[in-house]
Every structure is written in structure tokens, then in C-alpha cells.
């Protein structure tokens, strides 16, 4: 056994341990903390699997925004812990669930182990067609060119999730501000951090987006960082979440899929196909779409975490 494979096993063991704790912990809050650390460690696995783009996503979502979302919910729902925990299913059910889950996991593991060797891959095809876009990052090529439809629909999924979250508002507060008004000492520590960090975060976020054309990174990763910065400013009470009725906000929220769609349709009209880019303009077009998508992702993620409208204007 080499040092490297020992390391992999250790990493897998630690990750599995945290995952077990996340399921087994008695208190939800403790479980969620476990999940946050799980997200941090998962980034390591993705690097080890040579998928740095995914590692960036995992670091930004699993370790960052996902933690904020779940920790916040755990804190708010703490009073429901004891009553709901009493609905724990009987031992028979739990044993049955454990056995069946184990069976499914075992089947999955068998399937993975018995995957054919050499593995089929589209890496050569992706490499051969990379010239069509002029981008050096194969993952970006897949997301923005070869499977552009998935990426566009995924942005619509984000938008619909936001519509779903907003639709949970009470009727009379429609059009108001999402989430509670955060108040914090404007001269306190959190506010200080929220004044210092965002400029740095903006540079890093734009860098992560920009470098995604040739190196690991991209619109989603960069947008998540920007969203986190916005959220920090909101949580520190320095800026309020915008009203959901704001037209400007809504334009930002659809800019990504909108421009994607427009470019796609332009390819329809003048180019060869829907979502096809003329080779000469492929790179600037893709980057243009990604700029809009970064903004849209940042705004959407920030608002998804802020929640449903809870205050009417000015409250």
C-alpha cells in the first residue's frame, strides 16, 4: 500500500465518520455542524479526484452557503426538536430502514466496483472539440457549449426555486423585503468584518469566475462567492435585502438565463443551430453569458438564503 492510497483511505474514513455523525447526532444543530465540516472535507476528496471545478463548488456551497442555510434553520427550529423527535419510528422500522439502505448502498458499491475497465470517456471528444470555443477549461466547455441546455435549464431551476420561496410569503407582505431585518451593532465586530471583507471577496469572486475560462472556476463558483459577500453585508445589518417587487432586481435575476436564451436564439437565426456559437465569436459570447450568469447566480443565491418576504416596504 502506498502512502497516497493510505491517505485516500484515511480521508474516506474521516469523511464517512463525519457523515455517520451527521445522521446519528441527537441534536439537529450538532448534526448540521457535522454537515458543514463534511462539506469542508469533501472539497479535499474532489481535489483528490482531480475535479477542482467541483471542489470549488463544494467549498463554496457545502462549506459556505449551505452551512448558513441549515444552521439558520436549525436555530429557528430548535423548539420543535423534542416534540418531533418523539415521533421516532419503532425499532423494527429503523432496523428495516438500516438493512434496506445498506442493501442499496451495497448494490451501488458493487455497481461502482464492477464498472468496465478501461472506462468509457468523453474526455478525448471534449479535447478534440475544445477549439470550437477557444476556452481552455474543459468543464466550462461542457457546461457552456456541449451541454448548454442543461446549464440554461439549471438557471431556470434556480429562478423557480426563488419563485417557490417567495410564494410562501403572507399575502399582505407581498412585494416587501425578504427575511428578517438583521440588526447588528454598526460599530461591532461583525459590521467591521462586513466592511473589510466584501471588497476582497469581490475581487476573489470575479477572479474565480474569470479564471474559469481556462482554469478551474466559473460562473457558479464566482457567483457563490459574490452571494456570500452580499449576504455578509445583509447579515451585518449594513444593507437590507431589496424588495421583491423591485423591477431592477428582477432584471438581474433573469439576466443570466435571459442572455443565454437570447444568444441561443441568435445562433438559431444567424448561426447553425440553437445554442451554437459562431467560432469567431464563441469566446466573447460565452464570457458575456457567464458575466450575466455570475450576477444572476449571486443575486439568486443571496435571496434564496434571505427567504420569503417577511416585511412590507420600509419595515
Amino acid at each position, binding site marked *: 500500500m502506498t502512502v497516497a492510497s493510505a491517505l485516500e483511505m484515511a480521508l474516506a474514513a474521516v469523511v464517512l465518520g463525519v457523515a455517520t455523525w451527521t445522521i446519528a447526532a441527537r441534536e439537529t444543530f450538532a448534526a448540521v455542524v457535522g454537515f458543514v465540516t463534511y462539506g469542508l472535507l469533501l472539497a479535499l476528496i474532489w481535489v483528490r479526484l482531480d475535479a477542482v471545478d467541483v471542489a470549488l463548488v463544494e467549498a463554496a456551497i457545502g462549506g459556505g452557503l449551505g452551512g448558513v442555510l441549515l444552521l439558520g434553520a436549525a436555530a429557528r427550529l430548535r423548539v420543535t426538536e423534542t416534540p418531533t423527535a418523539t415521533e421516532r419510528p419503532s425499532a423494527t422500522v429503523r432496523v428495516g430502514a438500516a438493512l434496506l439502505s445498506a442493501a442499496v448502498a451495497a448494490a451501488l458499491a458493487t455497481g461502482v466496483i464492477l464498472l*468496465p475497465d478501461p472506462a468509457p470517456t*468523453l474526455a478525448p471528444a471534449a479535447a478534440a472539440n475544445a477549439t470550437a470555443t477557444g476556452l481552455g477549461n474543459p468543464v466550462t466547455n461542457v457546461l457552456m457549449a*456541449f451541454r448548454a441546455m442543461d446549464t440554461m435549464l439549471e438557471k431556470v431551476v434556480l429562478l423557480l426555486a426563488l419563485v417557490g420561496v417567495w410564494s410562501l410569503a403572507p399575502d399582505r407582505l407581498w412585494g416587501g423585503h425578504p427575511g428578517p431585518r438583521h440588526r447588528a451593532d454598526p460599530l461591532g465586530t461583525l459590521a467591521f468584518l462586513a466592511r473589510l471583507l466584501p471588497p476582497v471577496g469581490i475581487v476573489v469572486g470575479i477572479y474565480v469566475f474569470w479564471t474559469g475560462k481556462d482554469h478551474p472556476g466559473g460562473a457558479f463558483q464566482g457567483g457563490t462567492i459574490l452571494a456570500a459577500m452580499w449576504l455578509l453585508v445583509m447579515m451585518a445589518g449594513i444593507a437590507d435585502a431589496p424588495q421583491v417587487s423591485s423591477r431592477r432586481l428582477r432584471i438581474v435575476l433573469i439576466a443570466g438565463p435571459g442572455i443565454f436564451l437570447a444568444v441561443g436564439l441568435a445562433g438559431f437565426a444567424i448561426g447553425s443551430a440553437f445554442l451554437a456559437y459562431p467560432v469567431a465569436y464563441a469566446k466573447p459570447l460565452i464570457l458575456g453569458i457567464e458575466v450575466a450568469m455570475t450576477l444572476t447566480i449571486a443575486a439568486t443565491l443571496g435571496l434564496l438564503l434571505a427567504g420569503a418576504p417577511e416585511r412590507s416596504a420600509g419595515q
Partner: protein
Amino acid sequence: MPYPASVPGDVTTTGGFLLVLSVVIPVAGVLLAFVLGGRQAERVVLATMPLGLVIALAILVTLRQAGAPLIYLLGGWAPPLGVALRADGLSAVMMAITAVVIGAVGVFARVDFRTPRGSIEARAPFAFWILLLAIWGALNMVFLGGDLFTLYVALELLTFSAVPLVCLDGRAETLQAALRYLLFALLGAVLYLVGTALLYGSYGTLDIVLLSRRVHAEPATVVAAALMTAGLLAKTALFPLHLWLPPAHAGAPAAASAVLSGLVVKGSFFIVIRLWFDVFADLPSFVLAQLLAALGAAAILFGSVVALRQERLKLLVAYSTLAQIGYLFLMFPLAFDAGSTRLASGGALAGGLLQAISHAAAKAAMFMSAGLIYAALGHDRIVGLGGVGRALPVSVFAFALGGVALVGVPPSGAYLAKELLLQAASATEQWWWAVVIQAGGIFTSSYVLLVLAHALAPADASITLRAPVGRIQEASAAALALCSLLLGLAPWQAYLPAPDGIAPSTPALEALSASLWPLLGGAAVAILLGRKGDRLPRIPLGQVVAATVGPARRAALALSRPIERIDNMLRQWPAAGLSLLALAVLLGAALLAASR
């Protein structure tokens, strides 16, 4: 096989652009409606509807002229690297019925989801119109997507647009129903996703046509098939994975219920068809087909009996959906071709799909009428429906028409579907499924008749309507019901595979009289099992019948009680979760055993 074995190269065909438009136009509408908001959102959606209908029709026409599937390569990238959209006859007819139902629901919903005067924008209309359009776009993508991962994204799009519709009125029960729906649907989606991972790892593509050529029975493929199927069944709410369906479909606003029950569950059902008639066609599917149909039969039994025992009309209609979903799965064993040991596209498939289409229109009409009755009375207790027939004749008529179409009275689509399924049953010598098919018809007529008996009975006192009923709403419900009733007359041969032709074999009059038997049987079942008010509805000879059927009814009720109890148990979360996993394991074991 719906797709021909040899795709003429991987090239965009003439008219392929229509496929893009049918997805892009609803999506663009969603974006535009989101930005404009308020009344403009409604206008955008309503303007999109005729456009979508025209495109759906254009696809039907082009497909017929071309005589081969329409293909569009997105971005010009051919699979496996790229993603293709493909429309065969199945996709085209599903898209057409979707356009029709969405259009009718849109007209219907204008009254309920109008932005109130004096406000620029209101919550429920804003969400409803956007989500309605999103459901449409997602469904079109499901019908056209040629790539399993694109289908995953489309399915999630469908779930995300359907869930908020459930709790649009914000009541606690509907919020709970929405959360249950969302979580169970997500569980199903993840199981589907893991299957795609294994398939990609095995074959290096997720394109349906390419996979259908490459797939063979290997352990990883079997695991993938079992997990994907189980996951999709959870999203389709096939018994016993139906815990989320009754509260979600009964609790949603009428217009939303119509879409959810009529269309949304068909999305995942359609992918099950794609999987087993194309992707996994080479896997040994005999046991699987029998198992799916057995679950379908159980769904018919449970759904119908529990429907009969409901106090509220919308819940009855929701449970009827459960039974009808079961009916859809009866086609699988009938499509099994013993010679090639695979599911063959033929009369059974055509029948199953036709049933899905008829149910889409009929069930949407029934939910719309139920919603109108609820709105007018302020309640929808079945025993309190007396006099509604007089007060709301068109609504009750629409309900009756939808019900009759569902039972399978000629010339309804359901009648044709039943004919095709029965033909397939006799051709494959599986008489037991013919029995189940007939029983399904009887059960369907039982709950339809139960409702009609109550609704047509005279009122105890003169009923006062809380609100006047919109003429246009009644008209759109009736139009949909009529559409379902006349579906049997449509030229299906061009789109659905049926070796012996699709026209019914028996003369019309004979068929009509034959279809009376289920109605009579249904009446008997309804009398035996239906919920009664303080007094019996005055059916002809009421007292005499009551005296004679008393003991029989007591016996039937004694039989129905365990069914209700089991249903209640299965609708608890852990039981449903266990059923899902057990089903996955069972499917996997059956496939593995057969492929040895």
C-alpha cells in the same frame, strides 16, 4: 420501440427547430412574466398559450409528413458529447395534450388568479402564472429530451414548479403536503440520478438512442435500472409510493390540481416508458413488467376503495388519480413480447399512452368541476352535494362527462385504450390482466356514480351559492371533458404504434351496450362501499335495495376497512420510504436473477 432502431444519422431533421421552440417559448415566457409581474405576467402566459398550441400542432403535422422522428441537435453537437431533442409519435401526442390541458387550465384560472383591482401585483397570481408556464416548459422538455441527465434537470424543473402550487393558499395542511411531496420527489430524483451515474460509467453516454444500442445486462446496469425505475415510480406516485399524492392534489387550488393530477405525474411516467422501451429494452423485463402491473392492480384496488370511502370530493378525485396511475402500468406485461423477451412497442404501449392522455384531459376537467362546486358551496363534502345538479348543472355535467370518459364509454380515449389493452391481453394470453382491466373500469364507474348520485339527488333545503360560478370556467371544464370523451375519434394510427390498427373491432352500438356493464357493476360497488349521509340518497327503489343490500354492504365494508387501514399506514413517511427501497431491491434482484 418508439424510436426506430436505426436513427438516420445524428442530424437535425426538417422541422427540428419546432422542438426547440416548444421548450424555449415557455421558458422565455417564464422569464418575461417574472420581470413584468402583476397583470402583465398573466398576459404573457395567456399569450404564450396559443403559440404553444400551434407549435404542438405543427409538430404533429410535420411528424406525420416526415414519417420519422424529428431530431434537433442542440448547439449542433451530436451525442454522445452533445444533447439531442427528439420527438417521436409518443412525444408529439403527449405535447399536444399538454398544450390543450394547459390552455384550458389557463382559461379556467383567469378568474381565480386575477390580480385584484387596486394592487399592482399579488402573490398567488404571480406565482401561479409563472409556475404554470414553467410546468409546461418542463413537460415539453421531458417529452423531447434525448439525454437522461437533461431529463433529470427537466424532472427537477417539473418538481420545483409543481411543489409551490400545492401550497399556494398557505394553509398548514397544504404546506405539510408540499413539504412531503418535495422531499419524496427529491428522494426519487436522487435515485434516478445515481442510475445515470452508473450508466455513464458503463457506457460513456447518456443519450437514449445510443444507450439503447449499447446497454446489456451487467451488474452496474441492473443496479441503475432498479434505482432509476424505483425513483421514477416515487415521482409518479405508483402504489405503494403514493403518500404525497392525495393531500397534495386535494389541497391545491383547483386549477393547480388539474395540472398536477392530469399532467405532472405523467412526466415521470413517460420517462419510465422511455427507459423500458428504449434504454433498458435489452434487459430481461418479464418479472419487472409483471411486478409493475401488480403494483398497478393494487393501486386500482386501493385507490378506488379509499376513494369511495372519502368524505370530500377533491380527496375522492385525488384517490381516483391514484387508481388511474395504477391503470397506466397495466400495459407493461401486455407489451412484453415472449419471442424477443423484451418490451415491444405495439398495441399495449399505444393503449397505455392513450389512457394517460385521456386521463390527463378527463382528470383535469374533473378537478376543475370539483373546484367550481367547492367554490360555489363553500365545502365539498360528498354527502352534502344534494341539489348541486340543479344549482350548477354545467359543472356537474362536466364532472359527469369527464367521469364517463374515464370509465371508457365509446368514443372516449379511455375506451379505445381499454380495447387496445384487452386485445393485447388476449394476444399474449394473459387473461388475468384482462380481469384487472375490467375491474378497473368497474371501480372507476363506482366512484363517478357515487358522486353523481349525491349531486343529482334533490337538496335537503334549498342551497345558497356562496359565489356565482364563472361561465367561462364551467365552459373550459366541460370542453376538456368533451375532449376526453371524443379522443377515441382522433387519428392515432399516425402516432401510436398499433400493429392491428387502432379502430375498435366491435360495432359502435354493441360497444356502447357492452360498456354499460362496468357502469352497472360500478353502481353495485358504489352502493356497497360508498359513504352515505344521514339518509340514503334517493336512488330508485332506494328502500327496497337498502333492505336487501344491507348485509352485503356490511360485508363489503368489513373488507374495505383493512384496505383503508393499510393505506393509512402506507402513507406514513417511514413506511413509504421502506416501500421505495424494498421496491428498488426487489426490482434489482428480479432483474439480476433473470439476467443470469
